[in-house]
Structure formats: C-alpha cells, structure tokens
C-alpha cells in the first residue's frame, strides 16, 4: 500500500474518534475512582487495549481487505469455531459463559471479535448474492447463514450480542438490496411474535426458552419498581442509572463528584453504565455532546461505505456501522430507561479490553476500506 493513500484518510472520522477516546479516558478515571485504590489501573488496561488495537489496525490498513474474500469460507468457519469453543470451554462471568482464557493472555470474550469476523463473512456472502435477493427463497439462505451463529450465541446465553448480530444482519441485507417489502414484513412478524410470546408468558405463564431472571431483566425497564423488591431487585440498576443521570441536571455534578457513581449506588458504572457517569457528572451538556460525537462518527461511516472501492467494502463498513449504532443506542437507551438491560458496552467508552480491542480493529477495517476508496484517483 502506498503511503500517499493515507492522506485520503477520513479526517472528521479520525478526529471525532480520538475525541471520544480521550473523553472516555477521563470519564473512566472518574468512574473507577471509587472502586479502585489505584486510579490508573483501569485506565492503563484501557489504553493498552487501544494501543494494541492501533498496532493491529496498522497491519489491517496496510493489507488489502479485498484479498479476504477468497478465504471467506475459512473466515466463517473461524467464527463458528470460536463460538463453539466458547460454548464448551467458556467461563461464566456475570451470568454469561462468554469468557475464555488462553494461556497467560487475559480473559477475553470471543463473541466480541466474532462480530467483526461475521461481518466480513456475511459481507462476502451478500456480495455474491447481490441482485438475487428479491424472493423469500433467495433470502432464506442469508437467514440460515447468520442464524447458525445467532443460535450459538443465544446458547451462551448472550442475548445482547445476539441482538447485535440480528441488527447488522438486517441492515446489511437492506443495503445489499434485499427485497425491502419482504424484509419489513419479516421484521414486523418477528416483532409481533416476540410481543405475543411475552404477552402469553406474563398473562398465562407460557413457557419461554429463557430463565425467569433474564426475561425480568429484559422487561423490567418499563417499570423498574415492579421487581417484587420495591426497586431493590432487578429494577435496581435501571433506577440507580436514571437517578444518576437525572440528578446530573444540565451541567452535571462535576467529574469525581457524582454521588451515585462515587458512592457505588450505580453498579457496573465503569463498564455497562459508563454513560450514567457521563450523565451524572457532566450533565445534559456532556451527555448530548457525546451523542453528537457518535452521530458524526456514524454518519462518516456511511460516507466511507458509500465511497468504498467495491460493494464488499461498503457492506463491511455498513455492518460495522450498524454494530456500533446498535451498541450505542442500546447502551445509552438502557441507561436512561428506554431499552432493556442487556449488558452491551458503549463503544470506545465502556471499560473492557475485548470490547475496546474489537472496536479499534473495526476502526482499522473501516479506515482500510476508507483509504482504498473511490475518491483516490491514480
């Protein structure tokens, strides 16, 4: 790859990304202040993940992604293999068996990396079927292709990640030109079916293939005080997160001054509920500012996708974009009580090595496609 291509790199994307990362480091310092005597422990881990991600990304940017198309069956196989391995050898952490330890490496979640691998695999799969996605019969193989990893991840069970798969699958299919009527009909049918199942479950104890506590966690956000323990049970996180964000007001209580965070009323505030820290300590201003940055980041991915060298690249970028979009919407949504709690981290902000590494690698992938984009005139 010629270095001169690097000047075509999407600058708004890079700038916004670094703003988000720096913003994230600062908030993380405050969030971990109350849970660790060494204030830089978490930050260090986080920065290591970013640096590692950047190093890997440099290789990715240098490498022409189009070559990957040839190994697609292998890529897809790797994804399934990882998911199966984790099902068998995975360690349980916070109700999910998604964690794995290999030798001296820190525990990591293969499901995170699998997202990108699957985006690659599915992008290639769709690319080959472009123009032939008009009938239901033509759509079914796509569903089977993504249905297998979906079911594997559901078995862990990791409903959050499964939903991520579902979302980028649907978005990528739309973009690939799948018949929008059939797609919309299917989505509607799915939504109705899930609603009906939930209704039947709550009204008539209809059995669902999920544990009661999981169902409760999913539906609790509607009325978090109705958890049978006056808000001290399954509703606790939603309530404390809302109280944190709500009490932040317009300007917030200031970094290191959020009582909900610093006194640990808000659980998981450095991981899943990092957004509540922003809301409490930096207020409406900080909370909307970060959404603004995410908006730019996501819109730039759309721009990059549109200008990709080939449709394979477009699909990959859109897949990553959809993945981020869902992560952002779901994570912030659960923090402010409009989405169920699923334990999905906020990209670039939540503490967590696997998630950070995956997202930085995803950035590398986006940039790799970016620098090879159409605009480059030889």
């Amino acid at each position: 790859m010629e270095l001169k291509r690097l000047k075509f790199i999407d600058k708004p994307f890079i700038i916004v990304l670094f703003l988000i990362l720096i913003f994230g480091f600062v908030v993380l310092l405050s969030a971990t202040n109350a849970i660790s005597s060494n204030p830089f422990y978490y930050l260090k881990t986080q920065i290591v993940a970013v640096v590692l991600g950047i190093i890997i990304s440099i290789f990715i940017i240098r490498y022409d992604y189009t070559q990957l198309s040839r190994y697609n069956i292998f890529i897809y196989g790797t994804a399934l293999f990882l998911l199966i391995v984790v099902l068998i050898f995975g360690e349980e952490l916070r109700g999910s068996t998604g964690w794995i330890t290999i030798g001296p490496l820190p525990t990591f979640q293969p499901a995170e990396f699998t997202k990108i691998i699957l985006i690659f695999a599915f992008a290639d799969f769709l690319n080959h079927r472009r123009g032939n996605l008009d009938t239901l019969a033509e759509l079914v193989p796509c569903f089977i292709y993504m249905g297998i990893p979906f079911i594997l991840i559901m078995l862990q069970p990791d409903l959050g990640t499964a939903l991520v798969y579902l979302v980028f699958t649907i978005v990528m299919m739309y973009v690939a030109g799948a018949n929008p009527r059939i797609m919309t009909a299917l989505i509607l049918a799915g939504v109705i079916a899930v609603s009906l199942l939930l209704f039947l479950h709550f009204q008539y104890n209809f059995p669902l293939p999920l544990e009661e506590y999981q169902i409760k966690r999913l539906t609790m956000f509607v009325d978090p005080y109705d958890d049978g323990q006056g808000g001290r049970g399954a509703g606790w996180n939603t309530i404390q997160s809302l109280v944190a964000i709500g009490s932040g007001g317009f300007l917030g209580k200031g970094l290191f001054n959020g009582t909900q965070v610093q006194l640990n009323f808000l659980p998981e505030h450095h991981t899943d509920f990092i957004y509540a820290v922003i809301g409490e300590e930096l207020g409406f201003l900080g909370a909307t500012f970060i959404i603004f940055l995410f908006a730019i980041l996501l819109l730039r991915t759309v721009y990059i996708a549109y200008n990709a060298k080939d449709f394979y690249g477009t699909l990959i970028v859109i897949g990553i974009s959809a993945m981020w979009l869902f992560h952002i919407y779901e994570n912030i949504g659960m923090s402010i009580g409009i989405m169920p709690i699923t334990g999905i981290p906020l990209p670039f902000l939540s503490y967590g090595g696997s998630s950070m590494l995956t997202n930085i690698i995803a950035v590398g992938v986006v940039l790799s496609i970016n620098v090879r984009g159409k605009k480059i005139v030889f």
Partner: protein
Amino acid sequence: MNTINLKKILKVYSLIIMGLLVILCVRLAIVQLFHNETYQTQAKENRIRLLAIKPPRGEIYAANNAVLAANQLVYTLTYSPVGVSNQPEVINHIVTILEKYFPEINEELIEEKIAEQQYRLFEPVILMRDIPWELVVELEEDRQNLPGVTVNVEPLRYYPNGSLAGHVLGYIHSINEDELEKASSEGLSYTLNSLIGKSGIEKQYEVDLKGQEGARRVEVDARNRPIRELVTLEPRQGNNLHLTIDLDLQRVMENSLAEQLANLSKQHPKAKVGSGVLLEVKTGKVLAMASLPALNPEDWKGNISQELATYYFPQSEGYNPLEPGAATNRAIQTTYPPGSTFKPITGMAALEKAGVNALDYLANCQGKYWIAPYIRCTGVHGNVNYYSAMAVSCNTYFQEMGRRAGKDGLIFVANEFGLGKRTGIDLPYERGGLLPTPEWKREINAILIDRKYDNLRANLEERYARLFKDATSAEEKDKLEKQKANEQIKLEAQYQIDYQFDTTWQSFDTFNMSIGQGANDYTVLQLANFTATIANGGNYMKPYIVEKITSHTGQILKDIKPELIRRLDIKPETIAETKRAMHGVTKPGGTAYHLFYNFPEHIEIAAKTGTAETGRIGDNKKTEFHGVFIAFAPVDDPEIAFAGVVEYGSSGGGSAGYVAKALFEQYFGIYDHVANIEDVEDLTNMTIDNNE
C-alpha cells in the same frame, strides 16, 4: 441503478441513525432537565442518613448531693449487617470471641436482634453494651474477620450505690413496642435501640431525664457504609433531678429492714418482704423509702438472666410469699390491712363525731368486746380511756369508740387522712388501697350474692328437669310442679335475706374497721402520710421525692414546693389528744415502750403498733400477722413521721418498730448507724440470697 438505489438506502440508514440519536437526546432532556429535581431528591435520599447520637441521661442526686444515678462512658459492641456478604460466618465469629466474656450470647440471639431491626439497618444493631476493655482489644485485633462490627463509646446509666434506694430510682431497660408506639404518638423520639425508664423516678421523670438526641447526618455509600459526616447536632444531656431522699436515712432504713427480715425469717420463712416510708411532716418530703427484697437498677443494664428475671418477676401463679417479686415497690404498690395503726382514726372519729371525752373511761375491757361478734382483745385492760386504750392498743375500747362514732364518722375521718386514696406522689404505679364503705360493700357483695344464687337457681332448674324426665304419670308431674314452685319461693326468700344482710353494712363491719381489720387496705405511704398529718396538726401534704430539676449546666429549671392538699376538717384539739394518746404508746406500759425507753428525754416519740391479719388465702389467721408500725417525733414539734410494714413480722413493735427506732436514732443523732454499717449492700445481698 444499483448506485442510485444504494444512495437511497444509505440516506434512509443515515436518517435512522439521526432519528435514534435524537430519541436519546429527547429522552435525556426529559430525564435531566424536566425531572432533574425528582432525581436529585432521590440521589440525596440514597446517600444521606440521619443517625441519632445518644444523649447522656440526666443525673439523679440525693438530698445531700450524693450521686444516685449517673452516666459512664462504656464500650458498646455494634454490628451493621448491610454489605456483609458472609454474615453467618461473621456472627459465628462474634459468638466465639464473646464466649469467654458472655457465654449467654449465641447466634440465634444476635440474629434475632438483627431481625428486629430489619427496617432500620443503616443504624447499627447494638449487640452488647458495656463490654470490657480486654474484649475491645480482642475485637480490634481481629478486625479483618469481623466486617460490620464496630465498638462505639456511648454513655450508659450506672448507679454507684447499687441497690440503695433502688425502688425509688427504678431502672431503665430496652424500650418495648408498646412503649415505642406510645412515645412516638406523643412525639418523643425513640428508636428500637433506646433505653427507657421502666419504674420509679426513672420512669416518672423519663421526659426530663431523657435529654435531646443529637444527630449525625452521614453520607453513606451503596453498602450503607458511612463515608463522611455532613452535619453534627450535639446531643443535649437530660435534666438532673434532686431528690428529697436523705441517703443516710435511706441507708439506715434499708439496713434495718434487712436486719429485721434476716432475724424474722429464721422463725418465719415467709418473712421476706418489708417496706417503710419516712416523711418530713411539715413538707411531705420523702426522706427515705425502702422496699425489700431489694431492686438493684444495675441488674437491668444488659440482658437479664433467667435467675434475675425470676427474682424480679416470679412466674408462680398468684402471690407466693416465699417468692415475692423484687420489682414491686412495696411502699406504694402493695396494700396492707393497717391493724391497730388504724385506731387513731377510730379515736378521732369518736372524739369528733360522738363528742367523746378522751379522759372518760368509756370501756371496761374484760378480754373481749361485749357486742357480737365479741372480738377478742389483746388482753384484759379493765377500765380504759383514750390514752390508756391507745397505749395498750385495747380492741374493746376502740370497738366501742367505733360504735359511738358510727361508720360514717370512721369513714369521714379515714377519708380526711387520705386513707384508701392515692397520695399523688411522683412515682409510677401507686396503688389506692381500699377504705371500705357501705356503697363499696353493696357493690362488691351484690355481685357475689347474685352469682351464688344464679348458681343455685340453675341447679334447681336442672334438678327438676331431670325429675320431670323421669316422671311417668301426669299426677307425678303435677306434684313435681308444685314442689318446684315451693322450692323456688323458698330460694328467692333466702336470696332476699342474704342479699339484704350481705350487701348492707353490719355493725360488725364497723367493729372490724375500728381496729383496722376487715377490708381496710392501705399502702405504707398512705399510713406514713396519715401519721405525718396527725404530727403536723392536720395539714394533709402531698408527699414528693423530686424537689428540684436542674439543667446539666446547673440552672434551676423547676423548684418543687411543698403542696398542701387540704387542711383537715377536724378540730385541732382532736388531733392534739390523739398525739398525746400516741405518745403514751412509747411510755412505760405502752406497746412500743421497749423500743424507745432509752431515748433521751427531750426526744419524745409518738407511735402506734399494729399487728394485722394478713387476709391472704392460705395464711394462718391465728399465727401469721404482718407487723405494722407508725410513729412520729418529736411529739411537741414533730419533724418526721414513719410508717413501715414487715410481712409476717408477727407484731409491729417487734419488727417495723425497730426500723423506726433506728431511723429516729439516726435522725436525732442518738446513734450513728451509718458509721456502723459497713456492708449495707452485703446485708441486702443476704436477703437476696435468701430468696434464691
């Protein structure tokens, strides 16, 4: 076409991105801007706790400023269960450490205490008050194994004199739910951890003694661990009470009572209970008030052992003289027949209402009264007048006086002297006793008679119902019918007679009353106050124990003045004659001569002995008597009055009289008992030992 299509799709996708992020912003605005105040309040409620700081209780002083109740700082072992993940282990560990010092503490007890407080867990649960320093050290060293366990310093009541004046002081103990409910309905701030006065002065003056709780506003974290203090409101110590109790006299009274009981119980095992009251006659101040078996307020500091619980509140059914509960203050909570100590009342009634002259020999005592039921006299006294009859306690003379005064006269005078009515002393649970009246008799006996005859009527019905069933012929039935009607008429006639007799005041009621028997039942305090009223010439004072309330800085908040309840409607000469007659009791030939014969001449004592039938079911009427004694001195210008009862003391002069003697010796400086009592506590303890 594909490109155009892609552009359109991506445009829609971009709009979806914008749309979703706008939804988030709108929701954020609602939560952060419109509901900001609600959530701020919630955040505050999350983290701020109010913790009460216990105020030191007001101190209690005797008349000579000796401390009767004070506070000392003690180590209190508390436990905050919130945030302790391995609670059973921790509790087990606590029990193991405590075992050496408090073997009675077990896991269940601790869990019970935690459960009791489950809705106020941010307040530490108090496991033990007043733990020894060695235990504090041990706990501190083992800190890491004892999460949630803290040792605090807090003021705790202590009574430097142990059981001395124990019944007057009363005791404090953990508040119970009824008390908590009552207190909170009165707007007083108590918590489940509070101690509250349960009897005596501690109960009566709870509001004054309590003080005002301080508060700490503490910021806590999600595990309810305090992070820092925000504001502290210092507690205000309760007000101090200054009692009228003279500690020397109190000591002498208790010691003397204990001595009497120790001696008497050798002959009579039931002699376990005694009580006495010493009043200052011009003011109504209580100089000493004692009740045995003793109450030691120190006993109530911690958890009460089974043994102590039985000592204070025996579980036997009904009253068992061999197991008298020590919690009762016998001077005000138990009533006794006054026996012959009632005779001054009878005498005054005769002088006042029947125009009797004290000097006239109005009875010739031949060993028993000449009118039915011919109640026996204590001896054969021949011709007696008021003076000689009083000195020898002649039943014959006083029955005659009672007859002359009439029941109304007796009741009037007894009433004037406050017998059968609460004195209104500033102590809780004072009993009224009973001055029998015709109304009372009718009321109580009407019920008894009706109950008896209702039973008889029912029996009759039942019997005839059976007979009717067995009857075969109509003739037979007819006969039975008539027979039944006859019996019914007879029964009703009998009922009328019985009813008439039992519910109407009979002359023997008057006779019984004249000599202090029958249904008369008064507290020792009433007897003391009646004696004091004779002594001071007819001023019925309200007896009181607290004479001054001061703040902890020494400022006088309340100065309690003697209170004259009424000037008696009895001629001064009548009272003067009675004083003279009672003086005769301690003169040669008098029933109390043996007690005071060696007193210096200038200190003259007036007294009356009493030997009262106990009236208790199961007691022997011929051999078992309470010893009752009343006295005042000096006769010409009385200062103090005494009344005392020694249960099963056989006679007043032989039991309670010695207590009066000791007190008077002490008061008038004839003999310094205090200097010669070395181990008052030991003596009282001895009586406790007898009880166990």
